[in-house]
């Protein structure tokens, strides 16, 4: 089966400053990947680079058979990348429902399907983006990416700053998306064990380079190695 995402020799950063150094990996459709590493090693920069929001110095990004290396962000989104940005990036002047209808594209993930998964958002649909709790904001951020009917969901620290009970609830939803909806997912997460438990494969970054690549299970089983690589709590 052809690769859904293929990254080769990717170097990128902000302006002249280089953050990512020679990143190469690929994913098949339906695969799930945990992207781990300590703070500041380039995980979010990799997500933003996939979305075309950094300066690419060299290397290529191919997605679903299309070369997106030079594509602007909106074309990448339309090609099927569903971005859930770090810190949720709400639109304060849009209601919850507007967050969804404004970016929706045709596909199985319509409003009804979203409200089935997140009944809370139906109750809050007339509230503005800045009138929501952290957990609700994260639901909106995930729902907002889903209504674009993506082929690959990019989750950038979706559990950051949320109460443990909300983390469990969201992790269950993301787990279902991966297993039942067959969605391809890359998840960046500080809770390394949580991310590993949801995914099949793992990549660890350090100083902008890939320093480890294996199945998620292997890292879960070898706690010492995981600790060395990402210094988990």
């Amino acid at each position, binding site marked *: 089966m052809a690769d859904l995402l293929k990254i080769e020799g990717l170097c990128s950063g902000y302006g002249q400053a280089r953050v990512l150094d020679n990143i190469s990996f690929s994913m098949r459709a339906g695969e799930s990947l945990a992207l781990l590493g300590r703070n500041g090693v380039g995980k979010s920069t990799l997500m933003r680079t996939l979305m075309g929001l950094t300066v690419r110095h060299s290397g290529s990004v191919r997605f679903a058979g299309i070369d997106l290396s030079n594509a602007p962000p909106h074309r990448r989104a339309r090609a099927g990348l569903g*971005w859930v940005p770090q810190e949720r*990036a709400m639109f304060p002047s849009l209601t919850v429902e507007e967050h969804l209808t*404004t970016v929706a594209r045709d596909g199985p993930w319509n409003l009804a399907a979203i409200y089935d998964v997140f009944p809370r958002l139906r109750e809050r649909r007339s509230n503005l983006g800045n009138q929501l709790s952290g957990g609700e904001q994260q639901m909106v951020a995930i729902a907002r990416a889903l209504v674009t009917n993506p082929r690959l969901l990019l989750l950038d620290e979706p559990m950051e700053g949320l109460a443990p009970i909300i983390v469990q609830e969201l992790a269950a939803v993301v787990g279902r998306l991966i297993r039942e909806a067959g969605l391809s997912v890359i998840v960046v997460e500080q809770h390394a064990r949580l991310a590993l438990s949801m995914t099949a494969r793992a990549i660890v970054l350090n100083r902008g380079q890939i320093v480890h690549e294996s199945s998620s299970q292997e890292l879960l089983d070898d706690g010492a190695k995981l600790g060395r690589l990402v210094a988990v709590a």
Partner: protein
Amino acid sequence: MASNILGILFDGLAYGSLLFLIGVGLSITMGLMNFINLAHGTFAMAGGYISASLSQKSGMPFLATLPVAFVGAGLFGLVAERLLFRRLYKAPHLDQVLFTFGFVLSSIAAAHYFFGAGQQMGVMPSFLQGQIRVYGIDLGRYRLLLIAFVGLITLALHLILSKTRFGAQVRAAVDNQDAAAGLGINVGLIFSLCFALGTGLAGLGGALGIEVLGLDPGFPLKYMVYFLLVVVVGGAGTIRGPLIAAMILGVFDVAGKYYVPQAGAFIIYVLMIVLLLAFPTGLGGKRA
């Protein structure tokens, strides 16, 4: 005395309506791209000259020239944005200021060359001339039309922004440009359309303003500060803020020139300082 105050209030609101009509597009585009555009008045002037030329030379009725001024200035804005302005969105603010100021100076020279240095006269239809008396106050018919007309346009803008998908995309792009783009909204296209709409409205304001603001080649420079005040005091990226700001500026400017003419424009600058100290992010409450 009371009727005098009401008369000044009325004139101030008419003046403020024009400032709002011309400045609102600047507010949206500055909010979207954080782009410092001093050249907005050039597009208002273009609309004014389109209207004046059509009514003086081709004898077109004044009201019929208004849609032409709107479309003409909007197309001028669209072309200028696509060819010139968009190259500077990521440039330092000083470059933006220098470029747009140069654009203003060029437009002044061009207007001078094509239309001469003199004031243009509007050709008002007779039913818009003179005044009507309401409860003992003389209200200029033309200013009355102006306020009503700008009220309708404001309502239309509000509906577009709050009720349509396009409007929601504009709001999303103003709130968070990266997130909007990363979710598939073509922010560049949204901006071009807003720029065209905003410059079109400026052109309409320039045409409607011939009677009130006057029209000569110095127009973009003479009113530059007023349009910027509308945006800075009102807050970029909204329409409610600039609307309130334009009305306050209009009323205080007219009242100041009437009661303390020797103070001149001093009044509105003091007002600006006071308002900005009280509302640092503008009356609309968004980033400016």
